[in-house]
């Protein structure tokens, strides 16, 4: 049986990733390997910190998933060791702790993103996709283009099919984030963290309401949908 939601399987990834998973929980590691392989990626497993470090130090991985609590050598020390060797491979830290300060210490140790167990696999997949692309980041581009939608980061203007669309500042930030990760699944928590800089869970689906507002502005009066909802995961901006 497949782990991935149907919508996910329909996404054509333009790049297959080589992923290292350092996780001592055998069941969780096997599940991750199966699910990530299903998404088309190559996965290597390490069951403890020392093995993980050795693999990471020698292999050329696109992204790493590292559990914080590992036998022999803890996750943060593995990451710090790699960073000291000049390794800049993006790392997603997995943790069973998951309080605000844990996230801060994890990122300070050299992690690029932080996810608390238990997590939805779709959330993990979306995050590592984004992490992996950060290497060839669009940060330097001043104009983002997705189909006929155009966002100018300098003049703060948005156009679709040459028609100007007026957005509120937060809506602009939201669209900017979605466009930077166009073609990738972006989850609600990722939006809350990156657009609002909140790391808590706001009970109500506030993000959905913001996204649907934005959607009505960039889709109403145009022929084709561009901001898609991925069931069980989040959103994706993609020209059809």
């Amino acid at each position, binding site marked *: 049986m497949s782990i991935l939601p149907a919508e996910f399987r329909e996404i054509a990834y333009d790049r297959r990733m080589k992923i290292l998973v350092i996780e001592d929980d055998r069941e969780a590691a096997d599940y991750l390997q199966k699910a990530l392989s299903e998404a088309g990626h190559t996965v290597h497993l390490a069951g403890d910190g020392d093995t993980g470090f050795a693999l990471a130090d020698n292999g050329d991985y696109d992204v790493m998933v590292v559990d914080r609590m590992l036998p022999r050598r803890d996750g943060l020390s593995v990451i710090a060791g790699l960073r000291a060797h000049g390794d800049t491979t993006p790392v997603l830290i997995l943790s069973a702790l998951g309080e605000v*300060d844990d996230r801060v210490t994890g990122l300070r140790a050299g992690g690029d993103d932080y996810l608390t167990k238990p997590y939805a696999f779709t959330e993990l997949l979306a995050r590592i996709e984004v992490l992996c692309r950060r290497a060839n980041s669009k940060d330097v581009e001043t104009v983002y283009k997705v189909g006929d939608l155009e966002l100018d980061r300098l003049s703060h203007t948005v156009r679709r099919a040459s028609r100007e669309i007026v957005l509120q500042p937060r809506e602009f930030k939201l669209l900017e984030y979605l466009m930077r990760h166009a073609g990738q699944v972006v989850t609600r928590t990722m939006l809350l963290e990156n657009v609002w800089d*909140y790391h808590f869970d706001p*009970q*109500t689906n*506030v993000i959905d309401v913001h996204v649907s*507002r934005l959607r009505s502005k960039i889709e109403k009066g145009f022929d084709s949908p561009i901001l898609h909802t991925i069931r069980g995961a989040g959103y994706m901006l993609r020209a059809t």
Partner: protein
Amino acid sequence: MRLPPGFRTTAARLSALYTLLFGVCAIFLVVYMTGLSWRMLASQTRETINEEVVGLANAYQRGGLPLLVRVIERRAGQPSANLYLITDPNGRILSGNVQALEPGVLDTEGWTDQPFTYQRYGDTSQTEYSQDARAGTPTRHAAMALVLRLPNRMIVLVGRDLGEPERFRLVVRNALIGALGIMAAGGLLIWFFVGRRALKHIDRVSEASRRIMGGDLNGRLPVSGAGDEFDRLSENLNTMLARIAELNEGLRQVSANIAHDLKTPLTRLRNRAEAALGERDDPQKYREALEQTIAESDQLIRTFNAILMISRLEAGYSAEPAGLVDLSELVRGVVELYEPVAEEMGVALEVDIAPALELYGNRELIAQAASNIVDNAIKYSAAGDAPKVTVSLERKNGKAILRVSDNGPGIPDEHDRGRATERFVRLEQSRSQPGSGLGLSLAKAVMKFHAGRLDLEPLDPGLSVVMSFPDKDTK
């Protein structure tokens, strides 16, 4: 090596130390006092001898040698502790009351540097000075003397028996040693009783604590009522035990509540999963049922996270990063986050935020608390007529006051208002709303963590949630 129990107490160790110190001091005292008295008596003796010598010198000047010998003879005949001796140039005794001398005493002129022994003529008068006198046996005595050499090389010795000062020195020493002995015996006696008493008391305390450790959590340490240090210690420990028992009871209640309240969603989760099994034939429904199951478990995880967060905050866990938080900015951000939700639900959102209110705290926690409150206000007012939520932030009496008011049904009952912030309490009218019942408790825990408070005030109609933060300068 292990000492017997009586010597392993602190009291015994302290007593031993004091005894040692006392002993050293006592020995020093005895030596010093006897030495001092000896020196005093010696200088007195010397003075007496000097006077005698002056008298003899006068006689010598007036009558020459014959008068000197006569005077010495006369004086030697009188009963006294003084010693007189005159010899010819060859050292033969001519006159005086000394029969024999320690050899070598007459060889050097001047003061004898050591007490020397001698034998006196006619031992009848000496018995009173001698300690071990036997009749007829001449005894030797200690003395000091001044030896003079006359121009014709005859030798004159004027001295004084040391029996008296020696005896005095002995009396002083014995008195001192006796007094110190009595003091030491008294000290030992007092130590025995005080130490034993302390030992017994401590034994009673440790016996009681063993019982408490053994499971008798309602047991308390004995208090004698004397109001001494032991009683104060026992009272403090008893207060601590009572506090522990109280916390323990609180914990027990909370765990019972948690278990009870998690049973409901877990049962629902189980039912959903069971229902999903029944939908095997319809892939669409099967999938929906499974998705609902996942959503249900996500909600459970959320609840667990909230419980964890609340207990960490209530334990005063301070590792959460804190810094200067722009409260005005933060509240604006939360309002902006909820503004589309309010609009969608038809709730008018009114905002009145005083600018530049700052405080020290954790931005995430405060934002979460504020968003929980705003979320509640929107949810509960939405059903009414012309629903309206007002968010205001102001500085008042050195405090930052965040007030979120709605015109929903509110909580009219005062008792209910008091209970609303307790964990898992969901009042009757809120049962229909989704939520874990932890939003207000979490907000309250956050406020407590920031040394602030959260109050519920009734409105007509509606409810006002007031979060007051201490001023950043007062914290």
